[in-house]
């Protein structure tokens, strides 16, 4: 108790007075936590309470400090407080509304803090009482809905969203938050959508709204019918979807920008020279510096939108100018006499202006490009668990995109060419590619580049098997689309081939280590089947006849890798054991690659012998390849262009549960007391009323 008082005392402004005076509001809180009905002596008690500035900290600590029994004794009063909070929300007096909202936050948090072990039902009982709960929550949600959709103050809306976020994240596991059951029944989905579709409110509250939506969608996702999932999946309102895309896009762009800034900071100046001098010892340190807190909440929102709503795919390709500058200093628009005041709130929002800013350096971008850039940063380093999760989620989103026909159509659209500057990890054996030289190409090239980049850069001891699987599957899905639609993409496939062969090589050389943890045969099978796609169906999607020759050249050049792989899988498949079957599948899948090697290698050797050349040039090998096709027979393998469609359940359910938990924790941390008790807010209303 004394601790509480101390806290209350600290908050007082008049620290000079020695006798710790209690604030009026604190006294009133104490009255509530007494056993008697505070309104008994003072009929205007509740009215007065909500006129006082809320002391969140005191209230929350008070709730925390009371132990279960004590709290149960004050249950009626707490119920009453809750009830009056809800009632006050409907009042016109805005200060009261603000105070009521803050009090509600404190109530939710305080009660949960106290009762981490208690079941949800106890909490509901404590706050509202079982019998009243449904009614109270209905009123609360309705009030919040009308506040969010109304013409009221923006700060008030912000506070409403904070309250909702607070409510949604009070438990670590969102599905255990039983109060949310009432949020399911009394949907605020429409209010959230309205915020997203409106230009000005989107700018201020878009982020919170999107995060809230993402979290709500994850409430008991797998166990029950979540109305938010249903509603989000059938959403087709263009401005709203665009709005959602813009909010996500802006958040990701902001991340990319921060990363870039840090990178530049690191590159220039004394520090970089120092690190390069000291050497690789401190590289980890430098990388630490580079890591910017990833934003999984927004990524989850993007995933849910892409996964649940098929209309959202079009938003991915919605082009807008790249917002690279932190806060574009909006040139103050001198209001011309012809403009009625207040029709256009100054906003940096892209959708707001029908004219784009006139800056030749401004690249056109879209959500997909921003996302790809973000992915390229996140995927660079997967050591940190957050980043690993982010990278995994990025790959899952890409999987969903690669499966979608419409998305594939615009990925391969020859008329939509973009320069996508992906971030590449600085590596010893390669120079940082000059960023300006990236040609403008269809977007699918950027996706493939990203996948190749991932394949090349993650061959490490702590092998991210799961990510590799997803990565190769994304490539496979894209190639399936190209084969089906006979799209001949002008892509340097060679880079992909050599990356894949190197991956096989890595799997082979680390066989023992990897086999302890992973089924490497599954990945090897996928990789070999990618080659089989090129070998047997290359005629349907390769851009030039030469590229087919080059494929053979690459296989023949790296034949040792395939030979070794064959030996390995043969060995494993002849031994009895858990890997017998998967290994034998790889054996079968290698039939054509081996046929090619066995067919061309002697031809090349004899060519070299006949012409007395020790080392054949590439052109010479290609020549041999070209002239010896006709005697080579390949075996048609089936099901190469079949793939399993992505489904969240049951495979990914555990991942998403953990992810949502970590997001909840993070969001709860960010919806701090500080953001709740904004002084500005009160100032705003004190001037109004």
């Amino acid at each position: 108790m004394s601790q509480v008082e101390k806290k209350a005392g600290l908050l007082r402004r008049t620290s000079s007075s020695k006798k710790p005076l209690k604030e009026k509001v604190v006294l009133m809180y104490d009255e509530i936590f007494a056993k008697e009905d505070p309104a008994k002596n003072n009929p205007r008690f509740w009215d007065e309470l909500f006129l006082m500035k809320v002391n969140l900290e005191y209230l929350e600590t008070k709730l925390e400090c009371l132990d279960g029994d004590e709290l149960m004794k004050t249950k009626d009063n707490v119920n009453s407080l809750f009830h009056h909070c809800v009632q006050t929300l409907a009042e016109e007096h805005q200060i009261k509304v603000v105070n009521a909202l803050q009090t509600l936050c404190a109530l939710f948090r305080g009660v949960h803090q106290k009762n981490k072990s208690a079941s949800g039902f106890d909490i509901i009982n404590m706050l509202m009482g079982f019998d009243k709960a449904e009614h109270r929550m209905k009123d609360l949600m309705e009030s919040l809905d009308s506040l969010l959709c109304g013409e009221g103050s923006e700060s008030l809306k912000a506070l409403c969203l904070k309250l909702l976020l607070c409510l949604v994240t009070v438990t670590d596991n969102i599905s255990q938050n039983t109060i949310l059951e009432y949020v399911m029944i009394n949907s605020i989905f429409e209010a959230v959508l309205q915020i997203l579709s409106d230009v000005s409110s989107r700018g201020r509250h878009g982020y919170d709204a999107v995060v809230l939506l993402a979290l709500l969608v994850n409430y008991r996702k797998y166990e029950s019918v979540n109305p938010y999932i249903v509603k989000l999946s059938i959403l087709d309102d263009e401005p709203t979807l665009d709005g959602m895309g813009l909010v996500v896009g802006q958040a990701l762009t902001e991340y990319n920008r921060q990363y870039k800034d840090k990178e530049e900071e690191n590159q220039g100046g004394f520090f970089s020279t120092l690190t390069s001098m000291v050497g690789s010892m401190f590289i980890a340190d430098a990388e630490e510096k580079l890591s910017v807190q990833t934003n999984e909440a927004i990524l989850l929102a993007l995933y849910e939108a892409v996964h649940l709503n098929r209309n959202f795919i079009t938003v991915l390709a919605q082009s807008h100018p790249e917002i690279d500058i932190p806060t574009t200093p909006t040139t103050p628009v001198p209001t011309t006499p012809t403009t009625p005041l207040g029709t256009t709130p100054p906003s940096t929002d892209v959708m707001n202006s029908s004219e784009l800013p006139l800056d030749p350096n401004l690249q056109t971008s879209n959500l997909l490009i921003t996302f790809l850039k973000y992915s390229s940063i996140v995927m660079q380093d997967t050591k940190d668990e957050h980043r690993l999760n982010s990278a995994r989620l990025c790959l899952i989103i890409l999987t969903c995109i690669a499966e979608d026909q419409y998305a594939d159509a615009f990925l391969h659209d020859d008329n939509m060419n973009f320069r996508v500057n992906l971030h590449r990890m600085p590596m010893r054996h390669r120079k940082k590619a000059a960023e300006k030289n990236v040609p403008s190409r269809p977007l699918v090239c950027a996706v493939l580049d990203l996948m190749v980049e991932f394949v090349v850069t993650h061959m490490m001891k702590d092998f991210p098997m799961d990510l590799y699987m997803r990565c190769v599957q994304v490539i496979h899905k894209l190639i399936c689309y190209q084969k089906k639609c006979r799209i001949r993409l002008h892509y340097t496939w060679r880079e992909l081939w050599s990356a894949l062969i190197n991956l096989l090589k890595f799997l082979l050389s680390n066989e023992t280590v990897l086999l302890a943890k992973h089924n490497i045969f599954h990945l090897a099978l996928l990789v070999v089947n990618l080659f089989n796609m090129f070998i047997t169906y290359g005629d349907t999607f390769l851009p030039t006849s030469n590229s087919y020759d080059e494929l053979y050249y690459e296989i023949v050049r790296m034949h040792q890798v395939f030979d070794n792989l064959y030996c390995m899988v043969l060995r494993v498949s002849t031994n009895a054991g858990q890997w017998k079957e998967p290994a034998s599948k790889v054996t079968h899948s290698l039939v054509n690659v081996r046929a090619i090697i066995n067919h061309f290698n002697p031809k090349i050797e004899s060519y070299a012998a006949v012409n007395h050349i020790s080392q054949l040039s590439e052109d010479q090998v290609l020549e041999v390849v070209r002239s010896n096709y006709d005697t080579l027979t390949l075996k048609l393998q089936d099901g190469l262009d079949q793939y399993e469609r992505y489904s969240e359940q049951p495979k990914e359910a555990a991942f998403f549960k953990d992810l949502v938990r970590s997001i909840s924790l993070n969001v709860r941390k960010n919806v701090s007391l500080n953001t709740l008790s904004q002084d500005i807010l009160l100032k705003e209303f004190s001037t109004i009323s």
Partner: protein
Amino acid sequence: MGDVELEQSVAQTEEPQQHTPSTASSVSISSSPSHSLPSSPSSGPYHHHQPTSSTPSPTHSDGPAIPSPSLGVISEGVTELTLVIDPEVAKKACQEVLQKVKLLKGEGEGSGFEGGCGPDPTLANGTVHNKPTDPVSVGGGGIIKPQKIHEEEDPESLTPGSVKSARRRQRHNPSKQSWLLRLFESKLFDVSMAISYLHNSKEPGVQAYIGNRLFSFRHEEVDFYLPQLLNMYIHMDEDVGDAIKPYVVHRCRQSISFSLQCAWLLGAYSSDMHISTQRHSRGTKLRKLIFSDELKPAGLRARRPPALTPFCPLPNATPALHGHGVGGEHGLSPTKRTHQRSKSDATVSISLSSNLKRTASNPKVESSQDEDLSSSSESLECENHDCKTGTPVRLTPQRDFIKSLMGIGKRLATLPTKEQKTQRLISELSLLNHKLPARVWLPTSAFDHHVVRVPHTQAVVLNSKDKAPYLIYVEVLECEDFETSSVPVRISETRIRSTRSVENLPDCGITADQRAVSFSTVPNYDDDNEAWSVDDIGELQLPEIHTNSCDNISQFSVDSITSLDSKEPIFIAAGDIRRRLSEQLAHTPTTFRRDPEDPSAMALKEPWQEKVQRIREGSPYGHIPTWRLLSVIVKCGDDLRQELLASQVLQQLQVIWEQERVPIWIKPYKILVISSDSGMIEPIVNAVSIHQVKKQSQMPLLDYFLQEHGTHTTEAFLTAQRNFVQSCAGYCLICYLLQVKDRHNGNILLDADGHIIHIDFGFILSSSPRNLGFETSAFKLTSEFVDVMGGLDGDMFNYYKMLMLQGLIAARKHMDKVIQIVEIMQQGSQLPCFHGSSTIRSLKERFHMSLTEEQLQVLVEQMVDGSMRSITTKLYDGFQYLTNGIM
């Protein structure tokens, strides 16, 4: 006896007019004393419905008998703004004038008329010269002078036998007949002649009469000469202007499209005037009048059925919509969907005000924003404009649409690379899409429609060094009448997929309203699982072209991978795969590679039908039966007035060649002049420039022909070759006659059928690029062209020369019609093509009226020889290659 004959012949010529509806208004010309005065200024030109139409009277005979109002009276009435000349009054005035003329003439000698026509001696001279060599001047020649009729012996002429006798009779009876009037009333009197007389005659009465007579022509006929009419209105004297104005005002009241076109042309053709005179000029005033939208159809006579008026945004509805934010931001919740129909109109007017604001705040844009008026009139217009946003403004959506297209062009020009331009264009257009559909249309199109969507990813920036012309494709829905039909409901981009799933449903006969209902309930589709699975690429159905392809085989054995031993394995030869790959690549030569420096090449090469199909599939509106795809080139910073002139000449020549049955093929394309530095061009579909062909294919033109159409003996090749020859002959003649310069390969297109098409008439008549003295040959004929025609000795080459000769003879026969178009436009013009004093004279000389056909043949031979040998053609190509990279 002459009298009787004449009366009969005139009566005969008049009679058909009474029955043809198109000339119904001409009926009102007939004069009877009771209708001699306009009833009131506001009654307008509509007197067709008065009983006069039923009482045709022998007009020519009662001319002198009626006490006509004096000329002074008429001109006084005409000067009033809204007062329209009453046809009858005008007619009488006209007759009066003619009488005077005849009196003068009767007093003089045989050539006395020339004296009577005193004010315009040059004109009379001009036509007299040509007479002997012009065998069918009445039928074809636009200018028919009384003298011409006197000397006319041609059986094709209007009153064959009676001419001489009539003249005789006229001498006896000078005051009784009006030759000119009889000509005017004959059925041979067409728009071309009317324009010619309007231009050449100095008599206010004649001008006033013709001004009225314009009402009797079909709209399309007059529309062709609209640039001429308006240029005369701007630059000629008061009387001509007064004669033209009623017609223009009348048409403006009828049609938004006509109004806008007039206003744009008026602006463009006024731009050469000095700024101070321009501000107070007639053209500017009329332009302002049109833009002020006072020329609405008067309430009672409104063609719009009252039932449709609710579709226009109501004045009181607009403020409410303002609240939703600017820039075509749409309603928020699904509950608002019912308002969408009216909103589409309203959003445009909203966006207009925002546009204006924004441009006003941006001085860079502002300075070049408005067409070409002085800043004072600009601000005036803005005010007008803004006050009106609340009321249904007829012209606003369309003007706004055009303005935003031009704005995009201007902004694109500031970007350095093609790639940036293209990307910028795409994103700008995607924003424009948010404001569509609206009551806007492409003026270059032939049918009424509403623009519903711009497939922004298909737009391309065209090749230009410092400007940024761009080509957009525009999805439209055909409609009955763009002014009255309701604007289509917006279907959001995101609904492509749901509409796609209902694509096959019969949709015919559904009215717009029903459709609106069906689309507002779209979420229904989302519930069925079938719609979901369509998006799965695993189930994507594609038409299988190669039935022998191995992937078909693979489809019946999906699970075989696990049961290898139990199944008969299928073997394929690697060589087959490789062969198929190269065959398929070889079989698709019609696609061009993507070239970031030349983004349009690939887009233009794609066959139009395939493009239409592709865009239709990707469009949320694609399932609607009235869906059409149009394309347009938006030019910003370019003066298209010369282009328009050239296009008119081309059209005229095309008509002439068709009429004379010369199988020459040319392709005039539509030009829309919006101001003196902006406009739109109708692109030629299925055509790419020869530069692009050569750059992409890297082979001589003949080889490209062989690749595209087949070997020498195939029918396809022969057809393409014939097309090439016929078009080549046409354009060679045009290049010669119009002195078209700047003929590098980037300005010559080749279409899918083998025709060549010249574009870019920026340098014609008296102007040539930088006056470097290149291109001295008559036209461009390279050895590559000759190769395609089968070489110098081939039949096709002779055919080419023969076509040139025939074409030249035909053109010469109708020279006046061609000259007239050019001559009128010269008035008041500062265009480079009229530089110097000899433009028209030189043009006339190029028709070689004095040569015999044999001499003409020699001339053609000489020109062809000269052009082929011309070193300057090659030099110019080399010069273009060096400076602009054009092959």
